[in-house]
């Protein structure tokens, strides 16, 4: 299965339920015109092709770019350079976000020109830049726990929210949804994965997530502070659904928007590449191809969504509100369940979870939790439209408070994923299809205020997954804490036996639980081994954790040393004696004979297979060389 086919498969699997449900509604309850249905189907086809190509592009371009930038940031020798670079990245990806400019124009119109669109975009970008910078310092410094950091960030937001009007609260939360767009989120995800990979250590898994959550706090601060300082309290506009254009008219428009969004980031990368990275032509080729795919894919995807999905969403919302009022929350729930899995960033986050945890956290589990969260959020929004007495902050405030509280009792990896999920779920699909649906519903509900209720849907979608995944993490943590404890004691060192007879090389392999590899490395080094190579994997054995029918395998580290076979037995015994591997699934040490034809010292002929290796060779593993 090649990459494109893999992505196509993936996208079809999440697109199909959406198409089926929408067609079902269109033919039964809604009674849509044939022209609209055809438009929707064409849009779906564009979306399928576009999203698949886009995801390939993200794999080829965005991941390496994030990786190189992360290396550049982390290996800064001065704090000032580190600060400027991380700020710049946050600023540049946000300032180019098309959704943010649209929101800015709405705010400008609504505030009667008191707040300029450009000014707002810059303010929000500065907010994101500062938070990315703080987040980077936290991640690399490692002094503060992520949960504490986010708790402080949200406490600040709550404190500010006392001083702003409800409309502005909604718009602030919406703007954080608009900032975490289709392009920004994959880049920030790649960046944080890169940073944590470089930092390594025991927290590297949990550090790979959470930067999207950090960045989504930026716009809220920026907008709330702006509201307080300028005294702007009332917003009278609403996210305006664009008048439907023909697909062909839309293509060039979306193309330029995508170029505009991609340009600053690509430019920063090429400049840094020219000065610092100087990557190989082969890799450069991949990145350029990837950028082209990203651009093409994003264009097709956005065109498909705008052209095919928006009208349909509006129609479904208004017709159901008109004829089957009480069904609104149910339809909202169903749509929410399946639409969120079409968000590009959700798919990218899924891959990152799989890669970083070595497949330990089942992707399905995260996806289902995410779906349920978003479904409840949209159903809640529908209730809010139907019953005007229910205010937005009835949902937002308790939701975030509970999430913050749970973050201290949740598995650290889930905390990062949960805060990320909020930004990730509120992408282009939500901003178009779901928003159009909600506006349609509000337009046909006499008690609802279209202008006020339009805002806030994105905020709800951004809040609910944070809560639902945090809940999952807390339940998971609870389960883990009830498992029998594993103690990794470090017994006294054992004297190293003298080397035996000359021989060839051996691979000494240790399969250990996560976090033990550092101890193992130092033990082996003390016993005379050189460097080692470490692979992340997952393993079963002993008490596995069954969780809601999902199986959670333990995360393992596989450490491989290449050692002269005269001392390999001794080193293996030493490791075995000094690492406590007792208990089921605790770890394993074994030796695989490597034929001596492998390593050659300069100036020596390769020894024949099966013969002894000459003395005095450097037997250090590749890991010994930085």
């Amino acid at each position, binding site marked *: 299965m090649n990459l494109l086919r893999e992505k196509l498969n993936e996208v079809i699997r999440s697109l199909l339920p959406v198409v089926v449900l929408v067609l079902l509604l269109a033919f039964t309850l809604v009674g849509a015109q044939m022209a609209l249905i055809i438009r929707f189907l064409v849009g779906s086809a564009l979306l399928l092709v576009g999203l698949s190509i886009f995801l390939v592009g993200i794999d080829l371009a965005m991941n390496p770019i994030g990786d190189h930038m992360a290396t550049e940031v982390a290996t800064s020798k001065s704090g000032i350079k580190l600060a400027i670079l991380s700020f710049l990245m946050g600023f540049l990806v946000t300032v180019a976000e098309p959704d943010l400019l649209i929101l800015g124009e709405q705010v400008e119109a609504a505030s009667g020109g008191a707040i300029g669109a450009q000014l707002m975009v810059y303010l929000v970008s500065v907010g994101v830049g500062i938070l990315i910078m703080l987040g980077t310092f936290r991640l690399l410094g490692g002094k503060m726990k992520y949960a504490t950091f986010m708790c402080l960030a949200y406490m600040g937001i709550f404190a500010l929210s006392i001083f702003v009007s409800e409309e502005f609260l909604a718009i602030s939360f919406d703007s954080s949804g608009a900032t975490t767009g289709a392009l920004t989120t994959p880049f920030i995800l790649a960046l944080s994965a890169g940073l944590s990979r470089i930092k390594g250590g025991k927290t590297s898994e949990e550090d790979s997530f959470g930067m999207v959550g950090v960045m989504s706090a930026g716009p809220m601060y920026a907008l709330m502070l702006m509201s307080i300082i300028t005294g702007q309290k009332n917003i009278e506009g609403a996210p305006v659904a664009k008048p439907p254009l023909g697909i062909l008219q839309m293509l060039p428009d979306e193309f330029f928007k995508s170029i505009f969004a991609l340009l600053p980031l690509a430019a920063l990368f090429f400049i840094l590449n020219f000065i610092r990275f100087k990557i190989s032509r082969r890799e450069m080729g991949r990145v350029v191809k990837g950028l082209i795919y990203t651009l093409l894919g994003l264009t097709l995807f956005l065109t498909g969504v705008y052209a095919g999905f928006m009208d349909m969403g509006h129609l479904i919302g208004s017709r159901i509100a008109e004829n089957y009022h009480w069904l609104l929350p149910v339809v909202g729930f169903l749509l929410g369940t399946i639409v969120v899995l079409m968000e590009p960033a959700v798919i990218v986050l899924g891959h990152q979870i799989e890669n970083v945890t070595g*497949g330990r956290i089942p992707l399905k589990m995260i996806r289902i939790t995410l779906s349920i969260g978003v479904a409840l959020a949209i159903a809640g929004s529908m209730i809010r439209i139907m019953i005007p007495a229910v205010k937005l902050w009835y949902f937002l405030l308790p939701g975030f408070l509970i999430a913050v509280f749970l973050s201290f009792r949740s598995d650290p990896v889930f905390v990062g994923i949960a805060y990320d999920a909020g930004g990730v779920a509120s992408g282009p699909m939500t901003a178009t299809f779901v928003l159009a649906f909600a506006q349609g519903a509000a337009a046909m509900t006499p008690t609802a205020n279209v202008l006020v209720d339009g805002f806030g849907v994105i905020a709800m979608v951004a809040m609910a997954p944070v809560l639902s995944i945090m809940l999952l993490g807390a339940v998971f943590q609870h389960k883990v804490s009830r498992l029998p404890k594993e103690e990794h004691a470090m017994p006294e060192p054992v004297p190293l036996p003298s080397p035996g007879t000359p021989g060839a090389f051996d691979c000494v392999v240790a399969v250990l639980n996560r976090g033990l590899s550092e101890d193992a490395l130092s033990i082996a080094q003390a016993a005379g081994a050189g460097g080692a190579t470490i692979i992340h994997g997952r393993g079963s054995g002993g008490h596995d954790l069954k969780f809601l029918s999902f199986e959670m395998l333990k995360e393992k580290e*596989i450490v491989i040393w290449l050692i002269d076979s005269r001392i390999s037995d001794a080193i293996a015994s030493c490791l075995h004696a000094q690492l406590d591997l007792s208990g089921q699934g605790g770890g394993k040490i074994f030796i695989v004979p490597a034929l001596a034809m492998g390593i050659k010292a300069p100036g020596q002929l390769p020894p024949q297979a099966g013969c002894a290796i000459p003395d005095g060779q450097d037997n250090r593993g590749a890991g010994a*060389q930085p």
Partner: protein
Amino acid sequence: MIPDALFFAVVDRGKAGDLLHWAQDKGVSGGTIFQGEGTNPSPILNFFGISEIHKEVLMLGVTKELSHQLFTAMKDEFKMDKRYKGIAFVVPFRQWLPEGGQQGEPYDRTKPSPFVCLMVIMDKGKGEICMEIARKAGAGGGTIVHAHGAGVPQDFYFPLLIEPQKDLLMIIASRLQAPAIQEAIYQGMSLDQQGNGIILTLPVLRTIGLYQPRNTRKGGRR
């Protein structure tokens, strides 16, 4: 009986878990899974940059008897003798059991094995270049695993242990082909200079799923 061989299976992403479950039903106590990438020689896919294939590698300690059972099952139930279904192979090993003490006899190095597993450990990103060299020298395909070396403290703003990122390339080759491939990699990657990487060879006792191309050397995809 104590395990005396290490069973490896390289399959599509997501399938290793099934395989592990299946093996656990057969009495294997546990296994380890890690993620790798397959390589694809197709020039068309390479041109478009989408030649990457996501794979998973399953590693199990097995006894002789179990290894035989596994191979039969790989053929009958997982159809590994067909092309593109993945490959499996076993490598001899000795295990230190949790109860203490080393188990099993040292492998007789003079005994010839029908296949060998070439492992190349080099800096990240060089895996594909290395695979290309190997393919020119007659190798069918390989699996790249992302790994990292031990941390090296460095003088940055934050005192980080930078873990050098590595690619680990695994190639299964027949004993006859192996020296040529190995020599080509050694020369092509300039492994004679320190820091460029290392290459080692493990004896392989048995394989399944290796596709032997009829006329061309290209195509054996793992």
